[in-house]
């Protein structure tokens, strides 16, 4: 199959989660929506159910969700709820609501109230610990994950055994590895993987069943790895932020010969950096996997005064061969906004040019972003 056809197939999935959900339901499968992020999706897979990521939508406006949400909640969370209210994703059999940020924490209760009021689906509350690495933090994570496990068992109607979780960990490690490899290959071959297609491939992973997705992605990776060395003559950047999956916005990068060398985007690489142990106690393995996550705006850092995350991102830019960084700042994302001065400090110290673009998922006009990106490409081309 040609690369273009492969990308079209990934796009078909990425741009139509409702169709995927309908197909799963028609096949008699149970499906669990998973909000951002760091939820132990492995437990859903181990239960024999299909997890589907819920990261908002680029095609909807907030209407019905306004009844439940504060206006300062980010559009990702509000549009995820909108999709549960307007018939797009309400065939789900349940949702997991992590509470990893100041919006998702109260929002978990808005989901709970809305879903209970409308008799739609159970909501599974998930609280991660702030101190995730000490023994008590690991135990807290295990306890929380066990709560999730038991609530999933109530939905699927059977116990989720340790062996099934261990198998799920193997499936997810393979899935993460394939995604990491794709990110690397896409950065090496921008002539073959546009920013629009790169995003579609990564986004489809949230909706497809993991073994099928991994198999398809590994085949794509094999084709990309066999390509001759790239003769790309544009500029390379690193992207950062919570999410940047709007094809209209990403096409601006393609139109201006700007390639994504790699990313520090939560929806893309931030949540595939760490694998879980495939042996031993699988619940401890999942807890340790979360404990080992690092360099994330949303995670507590005992050594935050050292600006480790800022330096990590600056090094990411340098090591990837990119010339600059584009930060897609999600509107109303307090953690990203508050972290920005530290990121800027680290980038300035490393003499890495960057721009910050304010975005939200209800934006339809990107004229201002196009101007800024085109000018940034000019600056990087000097």
């Amino acid at each position, binding site marked *: 199959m040609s690369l273009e056809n492969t990308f079209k197939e990934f796009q078909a999935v990425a741009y139509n989660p409702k169709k995927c959900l309908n197909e799963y339901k028609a096949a008699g499968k149970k499906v669990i929506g998973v909000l951002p992020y760091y939820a132990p999706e492995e437990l859903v897979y181990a239960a024999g159910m299909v997890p589907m990521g819920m990261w908002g939508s680029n095609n909807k406006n907030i209407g019905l969700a306004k009844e439940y949400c504060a206006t300062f909640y980010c559009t990702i969370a509000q549009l995820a709820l909108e999709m549960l209210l307007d018939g797009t994703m309400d065939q789900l059999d349940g949702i997991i609501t992590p509470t990893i940020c100041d919006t998702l924490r109260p929002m978990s209760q808005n989901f709970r109230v809305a879903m209970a009021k409308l008799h739609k689906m159970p909501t599974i509350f998930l609280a991660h610990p702030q101190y995730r690495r000490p023994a008590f933090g690991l135990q807290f994570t295990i306890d929380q994950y066990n709560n999730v496990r038991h609530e999933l068992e109530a939905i699927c109607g059977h116990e989720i055994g340790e062996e099934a979780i261990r198998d799920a960990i193997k499936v997810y490690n393979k899935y993460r590895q394939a995604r990491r490899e794709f990110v690397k290959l896409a950065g090496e071959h921008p002539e073959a993987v546009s920013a629009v297609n790169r995003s579609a491939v990564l986004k489809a992973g949230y909706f497809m069943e993991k073994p099928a997705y991994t198999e398809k992605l590994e085949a794509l990776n094999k084709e990309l790895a066999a390509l001759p060395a790239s003769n790309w003559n544009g500029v390379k950047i690193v992207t950062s932020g919570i999410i940047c999956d709007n094809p209209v916005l990403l096409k601006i990068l393609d139109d201006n010969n700007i390639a994504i060398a790699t990313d520090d985007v939560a929806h893309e690489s931030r949540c595939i950096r760490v694998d879980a142990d495939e042996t031993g106690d699988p619940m401890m393995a999942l807890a340790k996997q979360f404990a080992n996550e690092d360099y994330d705006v949303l995670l507590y850092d005992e050594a935050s005064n050292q600006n480790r995350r800022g330096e990590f991102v600056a090094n990411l830019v340098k090591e990837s061969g990119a010339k600059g960084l584009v930060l897609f700042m999600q509107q109303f994302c307090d953690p990203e906004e508050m972290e920005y001065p530290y990121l800027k400090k680290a980038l300035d110290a490393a003499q890495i040019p960057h721009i910050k673009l304010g975005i939200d998922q209800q934006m339809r006009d990107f004229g201002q972003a196009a*101007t800024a990106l085109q000018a*940034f490409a000019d600056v990087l081309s000097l």
Partner: protein
Amino acid sequence: MSIYTLGIDVGSTASKCIMLQDGREIVSKSLIDVGAGTSGPARAIEAVLAGAGMTREDMTFTLATGYGRNSLEGIADAQMSELSCHAKGAAFLYPDVRTVIDIGGQDVKAMHIENGAMVNFQMNDKCAAGTGRFLDVMARVLEVRTDELGTLAAQSTKRVAISSTCTVFAESEVISQLAQGTDKRDIIKGIHYSVANRVSGLVNRIGVQDRVVMTGGVAQNKGIVSALEESLGHIIYTSPLTQYVGALGAALFAYQKALKMKQ
């Protein structure tokens, strides 16, 4: 044989053209007070060509910039962002420029220039506060023309405090001041300082260095310029060609591209 190049700046509120001979001499210029999505660009092109007695075919290279730069397919040979063009145009007029401030119809841009090239910039977010649109809204509420604002502010005896955070709230404040019988000229002065506060916050992010040049139509408003000078603590230079700086930069880039084509 001379090389003629055309720079077209299709802004959100006006269309401007500059024709250059050999990348040095301005042969003709035009300005139409409507911008992207209107008849403005076509009329501005027609006017600039008529001014020089030339045709489009006489142009070796035509380059579009501004908010509506992508709308000139088939007319322009290439397009570039208005940030790059304003920086280029300002550096042509003031070779020692280090900071360029461009207040456009719907956005504000600050550029840091080194050796005539833009090396860093900042743009406002989607909010209209601090932009030309903000001034238009306020002028309408005050029942004056936007181009009268500078003159009226100069007659003010005291400044009224106007919020610098939101166009909608600021409009309410202006209406409230009018209802209280406050002198329009004092309100206008307050509006200018409101814009200056907003813009200087943006400019300070890139670090202000002399020489500071302000471009774009709003630079014709002396009230804004002096409020901004006070806020930034730097002298701001404005050219009589201030509205044409983007088009001038486009014509200069067009000349560079024309030379490359000939090589």
